[in-house]
């Protein structure tokens, strides 16, 4: 609760640069949290979330660009479209028994195909993407604001929403089915769990949120371009989840709170030296996979346990 209040008041004290960092942090926390439902919690090797993210971004932007449809509505439509695509990917792969690494590669390739399509079809903007028509001042209806603060609150709200949804799912019977599928799909099936259905549902939910995140990003940047479909976005989403603790509730959030500011700030300091901040990123990825493969969350848990037993020991002595 205190934390919530803290974040709600924070923007009044931050300047544009830090607001930007927080907006990106919330956005990626939201995206990671959504991916984690599919990839971490249900254990699907979904390596193409940028495809869904891009679909969401392009849908709402194109609908606004060509039909003046409110981006909020576009966001919902994009969300549904992304959900359908995700479900299709999952369904077709299940039917054809494309599992494990192969599913990962297939979804990764799918995001590349999306990128190629968007690059070569002029109606979708081609190489430069689609620029959102600029609106003077603020417009809630058109999801565009002059300053960063409204975006801050929107992205914060979406992050909290995704956490709440995940928290709810964790405690339902379906949630346990997802875990069962993650741990051992065949065993789950043998026990009577409808694995197909309980893979499609979290994929659908996750993709719905991923696509809406695409809209948020597009509205914040005021454009959408083929890079939305690229491997970098996929990596950003997945790595925050893994780093923070894959499959846990707050893992992806923690991951984003650690990595995003790090990434933005290092880009600020070192961006002048081409590529250095990405080198650092690569090193961080390697180091984390080597030393904290289950993420910071697990390490924090161990730390907490250690501190707890340490203090208990102390109390016993003096008692």
């Amino acid at each position, binding site marked *: 609760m205190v934390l919530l209040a803290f974040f709600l008041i924070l923007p009044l004290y931050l300047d544009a640069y830090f607001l930007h960092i927080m907006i990106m942090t919330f956005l990626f926390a939201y995206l990671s949290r959504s991916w984690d439902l599919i990839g971490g919690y249900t254990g699907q090797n979904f390596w193409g979330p940028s495809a869904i993210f891009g679909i969401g971004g392009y849908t709402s932007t194109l609908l606004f660009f060509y039909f003046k449809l409110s981006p909020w509505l576009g966001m919902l439509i994009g969300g549904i479209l992304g959900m359908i695509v995700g479900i299709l990917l999952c369904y077709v792969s299940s039917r054809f028994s494309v599992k494990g690494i192969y599913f990962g590669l297939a979804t990764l390739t799918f995001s590349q195909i999306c990128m190629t399509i968007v690059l070569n079809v002029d109606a979708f903007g081609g190489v430069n993407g689609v620029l959102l028509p600029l609106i003077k001042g603020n417009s809630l209806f058109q999801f565009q604001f002059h300053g960063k603060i409204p975006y801050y609150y929107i992205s914060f709200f979406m992050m909290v929403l995704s956490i709440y949804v995940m928290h709810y799912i964790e405690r339902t019977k379906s949630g346990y089915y997802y875990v069962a599928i993650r741990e051992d799909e065949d065993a789950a099936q043998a026990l009577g769990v409808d694995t197909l259905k309980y893979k499609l549902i979290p994929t659908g939910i996750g993709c719905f949120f991923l696509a809406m995140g695409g809209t948020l990003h597009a509205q914040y940047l005021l454009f959408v371009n083929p890079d939305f479909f690229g491997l970098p976005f996929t990596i950003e989403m997945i790595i925050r989840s893994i780093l923070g603790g894959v499959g846990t509730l707050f893992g992806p959030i923690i991951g984003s709170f650690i990595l995003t500011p790090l990434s933005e700030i290092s880009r600020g300091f070192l961006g002048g030296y081409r590529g250095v901040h990405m080198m650092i990123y690569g090193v961080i990825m*390697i180091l984390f996979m080597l030393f904290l493969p289950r993420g910071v969350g697990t390490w924090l848990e161990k730390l907490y346990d250690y501190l707890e037993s340490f203090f208990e020991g102390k109390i016993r002595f003096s008692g």
Partner: protein
Amino acid sequence: MTLILQLGINGLLMGGIYALAAIGLTLIFGVMGIVNFAHGALMMLAMYSAYWFFTLLGIDPYLSLILTVPLFFIFGGLIQKYIIRHTLGAPPINQFLITVGIMLFIENAILFLFSPDFRAVRVDYFGAILSIGELIISLLRLLAFAIAVGLTGALYLFLKKTDSGRALRAVAANKEAAQLMGINLNYIYLMAFGIGVACVGAAGTIVSPLFGIFPHVGHLFLLMAFVVVILGGLGSFIGAFLGGLIIGVVESLCTLFMPGSTKEAFVFSIFILVLLFRPSGLFGRGG
């Protein structure tokens, strides 16, 4: 008609290089079960090394192979020993991220050191051609193809005839049984990764006079290598070789029908279709 034949031959010649790169990837996967996303970046590294050998020391890229192949073998061994080894039991996503981390590091180190400018290795015999009737065959491409196939053949003999080669195949076939036979897994993994990286290092060196060199050129080859490997069957040497040739030809013929980068979408679609309908590829061992 001649155009098709011309494109086909060019594609075949290029395919030999794809095959060599893919063989490295499939060897690593077959023996260790690791999908090496850094493969493209390593190939790019080899292209740059060929460039610098040529520009600073005047060594012809095909001669520099003598230096490059052992260097990359050692480099691969180091990567395996200090990084990859620790993720062998981890879930695929972790292996994905660690090799991506290596890719990011290598690509951006090169970006930082050498800038994003295109570089080219311009050998003197760049323009030499062989004409057969109406067909024009670039001697450079032919040489590249010949060396790539030669190295592939040498590797094949190594795998088939030597004890180490047989040990590699044994581990790829059945890890536990190989261990029971007294094969040292760590040593084999080291060798497999080393050879895999040496292959892609050779491929990069061989292709350097044929392509513009820039830090992100590895992405193209990485995706091609993946498609080839899936088409041929993950873990299959022959599959990677034939797959490479096939994809080379297909890619070349695509330019007839579709503009610019759409041929990429086509190649990717082949990839997905193979995954759906024949996941074990042409020669592979199963999905």
